[in-house]
Protein backbone atom coordinates (compact mmCIF):
# COMPACT_ATOMS: atom_id res chain seq x y z
CA UNK A 1 0.00 0.00 0.00
CA UNK A 2 1.44 3.39 -0.94
CA UNK A 3 1.97 6.17 1.52
CA UNK A 4 -0.90 8.23 0.14
CA UNK A 5 -3.33 5.34 0.36
CA UNK A 6 -2.42 4.68 3.97
CA UNK A 7 -3.13 8.30 4.84
CA UNK A 8 -6.39 8.27 2.93
CA UNK A 9 -7.51 5.10 4.68
CA UNK A 10 -6.96 6.51 8.16
CA UNK A 11 -8.82 9.73 7.22
CA UNK A 12 -11.77 7.69 5.90
CA UNK A 13 -11.92 5.66 9.11
CA UNK A 14 -11.77 8.85 11.18
CA UNK A 15 -14.58 10.49 9.18
CA UNK A 16 -16.64 7.29 9.36
CA UNK A 17 -16.38 7.08 13.16
CA UNK A 18 -17.19 10.78 13.47
CA UNK A 19 -20.24 10.42 11.19
CA UNK A 20 -21.39 7.44 13.24
CA UNK A 21 -21.06 8.96 16.74
CA UNK A 22 -22.84 12.09 15.55
CA UNK A 23 -25.68 10.44 13.60
CA UNK A 24 -26.31 7.89 16.35
CA UNK A 25 -26.41 10.82 18.81
CA UNK A 26 -23.66 9.32 20.97
CA UNK A 27 -22.51 12.93 20.98
CA UNK A 28 -25.09 15.69 20.61
CA UNK A 29 -25.02 16.65 16.90
CA UNK A 30 -25.58 20.26 17.94
CA UNK A 31 -22.13 20.17 19.51
CA UNK A 32 -20.54 17.82 17.00
CA UNK A 33 -22.37 17.82 13.68
CA UNK A 34 -21.45 14.98 11.31
CA UNK A 35 -18.95 15.60 8.48
CA UNK A 36 -21.70 15.16 5.87
CA UNK A 37 -23.52 18.20 7.23
CA UNK A 38 -20.26 20.16 7.05
CA UNK A 39 -20.07 19.35 3.36
CA UNK A 40 -23.68 20.38 2.96
CA UNK A 41 -23.00 23.71 4.71
CA UNK A 42 -19.92 24.25 2.59
CA UNK A 43 -22.08 23.92 -0.53
CA UNK A 44 -24.71 26.30 0.80
CA UNK A 45 -22.09 28.88 1.76
CA UNK A 46 -20.32 28.49 -1.57
CA UNK A 47 -23.57 29.07 -3.45
CA UNK A 48 -24.31 32.13 -1.32
CA UNK A 49 -20.84 33.40 -2.20
CA UNK A 50 -19.75 34.07 1.41
CA UNK A 51 -17.29 31.27 1.80
CA UNK A 52 -14.90 32.16 -1.01
CA UNK A 53 -14.82 35.74 0.25
CA UNK A 54 -13.80 34.63 3.73
CA UNK A 55 -11.24 32.13 2.48
CA UNK A 56 -9.82 34.61 -0.02
CA UNK A 57 -9.49 37.29 2.65
CA UNK A 58 -7.62 34.95 4.99
CA UNK A 59 -5.39 33.57 2.27
CA UNK A 60 -4.51 37.08 1.10
CA UNK A 61 -3.54 38.13 4.64
CA UNK A 62 -1.52 35.02 5.33
CA UNK A 63 0.43 35.27 2.10
CA UNK A 64 1.07 38.99 2.35
CA UNK A 65 2.12 38.90 6.02
CA UNK A 66 4.23 35.81 5.45
CA UNK A 67 5.98 37.23 2.38
CA UNK A 68 6.71 40.47 4.23
CA UNK A 69 8.19 38.43 7.07
CA UNK A 70 10.41 36.54 4.60
CA UNK A 71 11.54 39.75 2.92
CA UNK A 72 12.64 41.12 6.29
CA UNK A 73 13.91 37.99 8.05
CA UNK A 74 15.99 36.48 5.25
CA UNK A 75 18.42 39.35 4.59
CA UNK A 76 18.44 40.43 8.23
CA UNK A 77 19.02 36.88 9.43
CA UNK A 78 21.94 36.55 7.02
CA UNK A 79 23.39 39.86 8.11
CA UNK A 80 23.10 39.09 11.83
CA UNK A 81 24.50 35.60 11.26
CA UNK A 82 27.52 36.96 9.42
CA UNK A 83 28.14 39.90 11.76
CA UNK A 84 27.64 38.82 15.39
CA UNK A 85 28.78 42.27 16.50
CA UNK A 86 25.75 43.79 14.79
CA UNK A 87 23.59 41.01 16.21
CA UNK A 88 24.60 42.05 19.74
CA UNK A 89 22.71 45.32 19.24
CA UNK A 90 19.59 43.49 18.05
CA UNK A 91 19.68 40.78 20.66
CA UNK A 92 17.72 42.52 23.46
CA UNK A 93 14.88 43.32 21.05
CA UNK A 94 14.78 39.81 19.69
CA UNK A 95 14.66 38.38 23.20
CA UNK A 96 12.04 40.87 24.43
CA UNK A 97 9.63 40.62 21.51
CA UNK A 98 9.92 36.94 20.80
CA UNK A 99 8.06 35.65 23.89
CA UNK A 100 5.12 37.96 23.20
CA UNK A 101 2.45 35.72 21.72
CA UNK A 102 0.99 37.14 18.47
CA UNK A 103 -2.45 37.79 20.08
CA UNK A 104 -0.67 40.09 22.56
CA UNK A 105 -0.08 42.44 19.63
CA UNK A 106 -3.76 42.59 18.68
CA UNK A 107 -4.76 45.60 20.84
CA UNK A 108 -1.81 47.60 19.57
CA UNK A 109 -2.46 46.53 15.97
CA UNK A 110 -6.06 47.75 16.22
CA UNK A 111 -4.96 51.06 17.76
CA UNK A 112 -2.41 51.59 15.02
CA UNK A 113 -4.22 50.25 11.99
CA UNK A 114 -7.91 50.10 12.95
CA UNK A 115 -10.15 47.14 12.19
CA UNK A 116 -9.20 45.59 8.86
CA UNK A 117 -6.62 43.89 6.67
CA UNK A 118 -3.68 45.97 7.78
CA UNK A 119 -4.07 45.03 11.44
CA UNK A 120 -4.34 41.34 10.59
CA UNK A 121 -1.35 41.46 8.24
CA UNK A 122 0.69 43.25 10.89
CA UNK A 123 -0.09 40.53 13.43
CA UNK A 124 0.87 37.79 10.98
CA UNK A 125 4.08 39.60 10.16
CA UNK A 126 5.00 40.10 13.82
CA UNK A 127 3.98 36.56 14.70
CA UNK A 128 6.24 34.95 12.11
CA UNK A 129 9.18 37.28 11.62
CA UNK A 130 11.06 36.59 14.86
CA UNK A 131 10.98 32.85 14.57
CA UNK A 132 12.21 32.93 10.97
CA UNK A 133 14.83 35.57 11.76
CA UNK A 134 16.35 33.51 14.57
CA UNK A 135 16.25 30.36 12.47
CA UNK A 136 18.04 31.95 9.52
CA UNK A 137 20.55 33.68 11.77
CA UNK A 138 21.33 30.40 13.51
CA UNK A 139 21.72 28.55 10.21
CA UNK A 140 24.07 31.25 8.90
CA UNK A 141 26.28 30.95 11.98
CA UNK A 142 26.67 27.25 11.37
CA UNK A 143 27.87 27.54 7.78
CA UNK A 144 31.02 25.48 7.28
CA UNK A 145 33.86 27.97 7.56
CA UNK A 146 36.31 25.79 5.66
CA UNK A 147 33.96 25.67 2.69
CA UNK A 148 33.88 29.46 2.59
CA UNK A 149 37.67 29.50 2.86
CA UNK A 150 37.85 27.30 -0.24
CA UNK A 151 35.59 29.73 -2.08
CA UNK A 152 37.75 32.70 -1.07
CA UNK A 153 40.96 31.04 -2.23
CA UNK A 154 39.25 30.29 -5.55
CA UNK A 155 38.75 33.99 -6.09
CA UNK A 156 35.32 34.74 -4.66
CA UNK A 157 35.04 38.06 -2.86
CA UNK A 158 32.95 38.24 0.31
CA UNK A 159 29.78 39.18 -1.53
CA UNK A 160 30.14 36.27 -3.94
CA UNK A 161 31.00 33.93 -1.08
CA UNK A 162 27.67 34.87 0.50
CA UNK A 163 25.70 34.33 -2.72
CA UNK A 164 27.47 31.21 -3.93
CA UNK A 165 28.31 29.47 -0.65
CA UNK A 166 26.51 30.80 2.42
CA UNK A 167 23.05 30.99 0.83
CA UNK A 168 23.12 27.57 -0.86
CA UNK A 169 24.45 26.11 2.39
CA UNK A 170 21.56 27.43 4.50
CA UNK A 171 18.78 26.68 1.99
CA UNK A 172 17.70 23.38 3.61
CA UNK A 173 17.35 25.22 6.94
CA UNK A 174 15.54 28.09 5.23
CA UNK A 175 12.91 25.69 3.91
CA UNK A 176 12.33 24.36 7.41
CA UNK A 177 11.94 27.93 8.64
CA UNK A 178 9.44 28.65 5.85
CA UNK A 179 7.32 25.69 6.88
CA UNK A 180 7.38 26.72 10.55
CA UNK A 181 6.66 30.33 9.58
CA UNK A 182 3.71 29.43 7.40
CA UNK A 183 2.14 27.33 10.15
CA UNK A 184 2.59 30.27 12.55
CA UNK A 185 1.01 32.58 9.98
CA UNK A 186 -2.15 30.47 9.92
CA UNK A 187 -2.33 30.50 13.70
CA UNK A 188 -2.00 34.28 13.67
CA UNK A 189 -4.58 34.89 10.96
CA UNK A 190 -7.34 33.00 12.74
CA UNK A 191 -6.55 34.69 16.06
CA UNK A 192 -6.47 38.15 14.53
CA UNK A 193 -9.63 37.63 12.48
CA UNK A 194 -11.58 36.79 15.59
CA UNK A 195 -11.25 40.39 16.74
CA UNK A 196 -9.53 42.68 14.30
CA UNK A 197 -11.45 42.25 11.04
CA UNK A 198 -14.91 41.89 9.54
CA UNK A 199 -14.16 39.19 7.03
CA UNK A 200 -12.07 36.02 6.88
CA UNK A 201 -12.23 32.47 8.18
CA UNK A 202 -11.66 33.45 11.82
CA UNK A 203 -14.41 36.05 11.59
CA UNK A 204 -16.72 33.48 10.02
CA UNK A 205 -16.04 31.10 12.90
CA UNK A 206 -16.71 33.69 15.60
CA UNK A 207 -19.92 34.74 13.90
CA UNK A 208 -20.98 31.10 13.64
CA UNK A 209 -20.32 30.63 17.33
CA UNK A 210 -22.59 33.57 18.16
CA UNK A 211 -25.34 31.99 16.02
CA UNK A 212 -24.64 28.53 17.46
CA UNK A 213 -23.78 27.14 14.03
CA UNK A 214 -21.32 24.47 15.07
CA UNK A 215 -21.04 23.22 11.46
CA UNK A 216 -19.60 26.54 10.37
CA UNK A 217 -17.12 26.58 13.27
CA UNK A 218 -15.90 23.12 12.33
CA UNK A 219 -15.95 24.00 8.66
CA UNK A 220 -13.68 26.98 9.36
CA UNK A 221 -11.28 24.75 11.27
CA UNK A 222 -11.29 22.18 8.46
CA UNK A 223 -10.58 24.85 5.85
CA UNK A 224 -7.66 26.29 7.84
CA UNK A 225 -6.25 22.80 8.27
CA UNK A 226 -6.68 21.94 4.61
CA UNK A 227 -5.22 25.22 3.32
CA UNK A 228 -2.30 25.03 5.73
CA UNK A 229 -1.64 21.47 4.65
CA UNK A 230 -1.92 22.38 0.98
CA UNK A 231 0.53 25.27 1.23
CA UNK A 232 2.94 23.18 3.26
CA UNK A 233 2.79 20.53 0.57
CA UNK A 234 3.56 23.20 -2.01
CA UNK A 235 6.65 24.33 -0.08
CA UNK A 236 7.76 20.70 0.24
CA UNK A 237 7.37 20.22 -3.51
CA UNK A 238 9.48 23.29 -4.22
CA UNK A 239 12.05 22.13 -1.66
CA UNK A 240 12.18 18.71 -3.28
CA UNK A 241 12.85 20.27 -6.69
CA UNK A 242 15.27 22.93 -5.46
CA UNK A 243 17.31 20.75 -3.11
CA UNK A 244 17.81 17.64 -5.22
CA UNK A 245 21.39 17.50 -3.98
CA UNK A 246 20.28 16.60 -0.44
CA UNK A 247 18.91 13.32 -1.77
CA UNK A 248 21.04 10.57 -0.34
CA UNK A 249 22.37 12.78 2.46
CA UNK A 250 19.55 12.42 4.93
CA UNK A 251 19.86 10.62 8.21
CA UNK A 252 16.44 8.97 7.97
CA UNK A 253 17.90 6.61 5.41
CA UNK A 254 19.90 5.06 8.24
CA UNK A 255 16.72 4.48 10.18
CA UNK A 256 14.92 2.41 7.59
CA UNK A 257 12.92 5.13 5.87
CA UNK A 258 13.64 6.14 2.31
CA UNK A 259 11.51 9.14 1.51
CA UNK A 260 12.36 12.48 0.10
CA UNK A 261 9.43 14.41 1.56
Amino acid at each position, binding site marked *: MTRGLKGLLSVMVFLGVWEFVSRSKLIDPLLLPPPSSLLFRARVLLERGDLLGHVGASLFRVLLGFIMAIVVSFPLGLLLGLYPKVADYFDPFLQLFRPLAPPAWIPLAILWFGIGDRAAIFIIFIGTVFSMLLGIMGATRRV*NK*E*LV*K*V*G*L*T*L*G*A*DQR*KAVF*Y*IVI*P*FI*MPFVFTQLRIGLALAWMCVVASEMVAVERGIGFMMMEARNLFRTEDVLLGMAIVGALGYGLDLLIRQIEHKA*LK*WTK*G*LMVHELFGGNRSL
Partner: protein
Amino acid sequence: MSFLEVIGVCKTFWNQKGPLEVLRDVSFEVERGEFVAIIGPSGCGKSTLLSLIAGFEKPESGRILLEGRPVNRWGRDRVLIFQEPLLFPWLTVRENVEFGLKVLGVSKEERRRRVKELIEKVRLEGFEDRYPHELSGGMKQRVALARALAVDPLLLLMDEPFASVDALTRSHLQQELVRIWREYQNTIIFVTHSLKEALLLADRILILTKRPAQIKMVFKVNVPRPREDKLHELALLELELLKQLES
Protein backbone atom coordinates in the same frame (compact mmCIF):
# COMPACT_ATOMS: atom_id res chain seq x y z
CA MET B 1 64.63 37.22 -5.71
CA SER B 2 62.90 33.91 -5.35
CA PHE B 3 59.32 33.18 -6.33
CA LEU B 4 58.22 32.75 -2.71
CA GLU B 5 60.23 34.07 0.20
CA VAL B 6 59.38 33.26 3.80
CA ILE B 7 61.59 35.42 6.00
CA GLY B 8 61.90 35.00 9.77
CA VAL B 9 58.26 34.13 10.31
CA CYS B 10 57.04 33.68 13.89
CA LYS B 11 53.52 32.82 14.93
CA THR B 12 51.99 32.51 18.37
CA PHE B 13 48.35 31.72 19.09
CA TRP B 14 46.71 33.06 22.22
CA ASN B 15 43.98 31.19 24.01
CA GLN B 16 42.60 30.91 27.55
CA LYS B 17 45.50 28.74 28.59
CA GLY B 18 48.00 31.35 27.45
CA PRO B 19 50.30 31.67 24.48
CA LEU B 20 51.07 28.79 22.16
CA GLU B 21 54.18 29.41 20.13
CA VAL B 22 53.76 27.54 16.85
CA LEU B 23 56.42 28.86 14.49
CA ARG B 24 59.80 30.27 15.50
CA ASP B 25 61.86 32.16 12.96
CA VAL B 26 61.03 30.08 9.90
CA SER B 27 62.80 31.12 6.71
CA PHE B 28 62.93 29.43 3.34
CA GLU B 29 62.55 30.12 -0.34
CA VAL B 30 60.70 28.38 -3.11
CA GLU B 31 61.55 28.75 -6.78
CA ARG B 32 58.95 29.06 -9.50
CA GLY B 33 57.80 25.66 -10.71
CA GLU B 34 59.33 23.87 -7.75
CA PHE B 35 57.65 21.04 -5.86
CA VAL B 36 58.45 21.45 -2.17
CA ALA B 37 57.30 19.09 0.56
CA ILE B 38 57.05 20.17 4.17
CA ILE B 39 57.29 17.44 6.74
CA GLY B 40 57.33 17.40 10.51
CA PRO B 41 55.76 15.78 13.57
CA SER B 42 51.99 16.11 13.84
CA GLY B 43 50.81 19.30 15.47
CA CYS B 44 54.12 21.02 14.74
CA GLY B 45 52.64 23.91 12.78
CA LYS B 46 52.82 22.73 9.18
CA SER B 47 49.22 23.68 8.53
CA THR B 48 49.71 27.04 10.21
CA LEU B 49 52.59 27.72 7.87
CA LEU B 50 50.37 26.97 4.86
CA SER B 51 47.62 29.11 6.30
CA LEU B 52 50.08 32.00 6.62
CA ILE B 53 51.22 31.62 3.02
CA ALA B 54 47.59 31.39 1.91
CA GLY B 55 46.92 34.64 3.75
CA PHE B 56 44.32 33.41 6.24
CA GLU B 57 46.63 34.11 9.17
CA LYS B 58 49.09 36.90 9.74
CA PRO B 59 52.60 36.27 11.06
CA GLU B 60 53.58 37.69 14.44
CA SER B 61 56.79 38.90 12.91
CA GLY B 62 58.67 38.22 9.70
CA ARG B 63 57.49 38.55 6.13
CA ILE B 64 56.11 36.43 3.33
CA LEU B 65 56.76 37.65 -0.20
CA LEU B 66 55.26 36.21 -3.36
CA GLU B 67 57.05 37.45 -6.45
CA GLY B 68 58.51 40.18 -4.25
CA ARG B 69 55.11 41.44 -3.05
CA PRO B 70 54.03 40.91 0.56
CA VAL B 71 51.15 38.50 1.12
CA ASN B 72 48.38 40.43 2.84
CA ARG B 73 45.36 38.21 2.44
CA TRP B 74 44.08 35.30 0.46
CA GLY B 75 43.92 35.44 -3.30
CA ARG B 76 43.34 33.03 -6.13
CA ASP B 77 47.04 33.02 -7.02
CA ARG B 78 47.44 30.70 -3.99
CA VAL B 79 44.84 27.98 -3.81
CA LEU B 80 44.58 25.70 -0.78
CA ILE B 81 43.71 22.02 -1.01
CA PHE B 82 42.84 20.38 2.28
CA GLN B 83 42.87 16.85 3.62
CA GLU B 84 39.08 16.88 3.29
CA PRO B 85 38.10 17.56 -0.33
CA LEU B 86 35.57 20.20 0.86
CA LEU B 87 33.54 20.12 -2.34
CA PHE B 88 30.38 22.18 -2.49
CA PRO B 89 27.72 19.51 -1.88
CA TRP B 90 25.00 21.41 -3.77
CA LEU B 91 27.06 21.53 -6.96
CA THR B 92 27.77 18.70 -9.39
CA VAL B 93 31.32 17.70 -10.32
CA ARG B 94 31.18 19.98 -13.35
CA GLU B 95 29.83 22.92 -11.33
CA ASN B 96 32.41 22.42 -8.59
CA VAL B 97 35.27 22.55 -11.09
CA GLU B 98 33.62 25.56 -12.72
CA PHE B 99 33.26 27.49 -9.45
CA GLY B 100 36.40 29.63 -9.61
CA LEU B 101 35.83 30.50 -13.25
CA LYS B 102 32.25 31.45 -12.55
CA VAL B 103 33.06 33.85 -9.72
CA LEU B 104 35.69 35.41 -11.98
CA GLY B 105 33.10 36.03 -14.64
CA VAL B 106 34.67 33.84 -17.34
CA SER B 107 32.35 33.37 -20.33
CA LYS B 108 30.22 30.27 -20.55
CA GLU B 109 31.91 28.77 -23.62
CA GLU B 110 35.36 29.32 -22.14
CA ARG B 111 34.17 27.72 -18.89
CA ARG B 112 32.82 24.66 -20.71
CA ARG B 113 36.07 24.24 -22.56
CA ARG B 114 38.29 24.58 -19.48
CA VAL B 115 36.11 22.33 -17.35
CA LYS B 116 36.04 19.62 -20.01
CA GLU B 117 39.82 19.72 -20.28
CA LEU B 118 40.34 19.57 -16.51
CA ILE B 119 37.85 16.77 -15.99
CA GLU B 120 39.76 14.78 -18.58
CA LYS B 121 43.03 15.64 -16.85
CA VAL B 122 41.86 14.21 -13.54
CA ARG B 123 40.13 11.32 -15.35
CA LEU B 124 36.59 11.91 -14.24
CA GLU B 125 34.86 11.77 -17.63
CA GLY B 126 31.37 10.41 -17.23
CA PHE B 127 30.99 11.73 -13.68
CA GLU B 128 30.37 15.37 -14.61
CA ASP B 129 26.78 15.42 -13.42
CA ARG B 130 27.26 13.49 -10.18
CA TYR B 131 26.97 15.15 -6.81
CA PRO B 132 29.97 14.90 -4.43
CA HIS B 133 28.29 12.43 -2.09
CA GLU B 134 27.99 10.01 -4.99
CA LEU B 135 31.80 9.86 -5.40
CA SER B 136 34.53 7.92 -3.63
CA GLY B 137 37.12 9.71 -1.48
CA GLY B 138 39.77 9.58 -4.19
CA MET B 139 37.40 10.90 -6.83
CA LYS B 140 36.39 13.78 -4.56
CA GLN B 141 40.03 14.73 -4.09
CA ARG B 142 40.47 14.69 -7.90
CA VAL B 143 37.55 17.09 -8.22
CA ALA B 144 39.15 19.32 -5.58
CA LEU B 145 42.40 19.29 -7.57
CA ALA B 146 40.63 20.12 -10.85
CA ARG B 147 38.67 22.87 -9.12
CA ALA B 148 41.93 24.40 -7.83
CA LEU B 149 43.71 24.10 -11.19
CA ALA B 150 40.80 25.78 -12.95
CA VAL B 151 41.76 29.20 -11.62
CA ASP B 152 45.34 28.71 -12.85
CA PRO B 153 47.03 29.40 -9.48
CA LEU B 154 50.69 30.34 -9.27
CA LEU B 155 50.99 28.33 -6.09
CA LEU B 156 49.14 25.22 -4.99
CA LEU B 157 49.14 24.81 -1.21
CA MET B 158 48.30 21.22 -0.37
CA ASP B 159 47.66 20.25 3.24
CA GLU B 160 47.98 16.46 3.50
CA PRO B 161 45.63 16.06 0.55
CA PHE B 162 45.97 12.30 0.23
CA ALA B 163 46.00 11.42 3.92
CA SER B 164 42.45 10.12 4.03
CA VAL B 165 42.35 7.87 0.95
CA ASP B 166 43.37 4.23 0.71
CA ALA B 167 46.94 3.26 -0.24
CA LEU B 168 46.18 2.23 -3.82
CA THR B 169 44.18 5.38 -4.55
CA ARG B 170 46.89 7.45 -2.93
CA SER B 171 49.51 5.99 -5.24
CA HIS B 172 47.35 6.82 -8.29
CA LEU B 173 46.71 10.35 -7.05
CA GLN B 174 50.42 10.91 -6.41
CA GLN B 175 51.31 9.88 -9.95
CA GLU B 176 48.60 12.05 -11.42
CA LEU B 177 49.60 15.03 -9.32
CA VAL B 178 53.19 14.81 -10.61
CA ARG B 179 51.97 14.39 -14.19
CA ILE B 180 49.67 17.41 -13.89
CA TRP B 181 52.30 19.50 -12.09
CA ARG B 182 54.81 18.87 -14.89
CA GLU B 183 52.27 19.75 -17.51
CA TYR B 184 50.90 22.94 -15.90
CA GLN B 185 54.20 23.95 -14.27
CA ASN B 186 52.56 25.24 -11.10
CA THR B 187 54.57 25.65 -7.95
CA ILE B 188 53.47 23.26 -5.23
CA ILE B 189 53.97 23.29 -1.48
CA PHE B 190 52.85 19.95 -0.18
CA VAL B 191 52.46 19.26 3.54
CA THR B 192 52.66 15.63 4.53
CA HIS B 193 53.63 13.52 7.51
CA SER B 194 54.96 10.73 5.29
CA LEU B 195 58.63 10.82 4.42
CA LYS B 196 57.97 8.26 1.67
CA GLU B 197 55.40 10.51 0.05
CA ALA B 198 57.70 13.53 0.29
CA LEU B 199 60.57 11.61 -1.32
CA LEU B 200 58.33 10.31 -4.08
CA LEU B 201 56.92 13.71 -5.00
CA ALA B 202 59.14 16.61 -4.12
CA ASP B 203 62.20 18.37 -5.49
CA ARG B 204 63.07 19.51 -2.02
CA ILE B 205 61.92 18.56 1.45
CA LEU B 206 61.77 20.99 4.35
CA ILE B 207 61.90 19.12 7.63
CA LEU B 208 60.46 20.93 10.64
CA THR B 209 61.17 20.39 14.32
CA LYS B 210 58.54 19.82 17.00
CA ARG B 211 56.53 22.85 18.09
CA PRO B 212 57.58 25.65 18.07
CA ALA B 213 58.56 24.63 14.57
CA GLN B 214 61.87 25.64 13.13
CA ILE B 215 63.47 24.34 10.00
CA LYS B 216 65.58 21.40 11.03
CA MET B 217 66.91 20.37 7.66
CA VAL B 218 66.41 20.97 3.96
CA PHE B 219 66.88 17.93 1.78
CA LYS B 220 67.20 17.97 -1.99
CA VAL B 221 65.84 14.86 -3.68
CA ASN B 222 68.19 14.16 -6.57
CA VAL B 223 66.22 11.30 -8.06
CA PRO B 224 65.05 11.75 -11.65
CA ARG B 225 61.34 11.35 -12.43
CA PRO B 226 59.32 9.24 -12.86
CA ARG B 227 60.16 7.80 -9.47
CA GLU B 228 57.52 5.09 -9.16
CA ASP B 229 59.98 2.49 -10.44
CA LYS B 230 62.80 3.69 -8.18
CA LEU B 231 61.29 2.62 -4.89
CA HIS B 232 64.48 0.85 -3.82
CA GLU B 233 66.52 3.98 -4.28
CA LEU B 234 63.91 6.03 -2.43
CA ALA B 235 63.86 3.55 0.44
CA LEU B 236 67.65 3.85 0.84
CA LEU B 237 67.33 7.62 0.83
CA GLU B 238 64.64 7.40 3.47
CA LEU B 239 66.88 5.31 5.73
CA GLU B 240 69.75 7.71 5.29
CA LEU B 241 67.54 10.67 6.00
CA LEU B 242 66.14 9.06 9.13
CA LYS B 243 69.68 8.39 10.33
CA GLN B 244 70.62 12.02 9.77
CA LEU B 245 67.51 13.21 11.61
CA GLU B 246 68.31 11.11 14.65
CA SER B 247 71.89 12.27 14.92
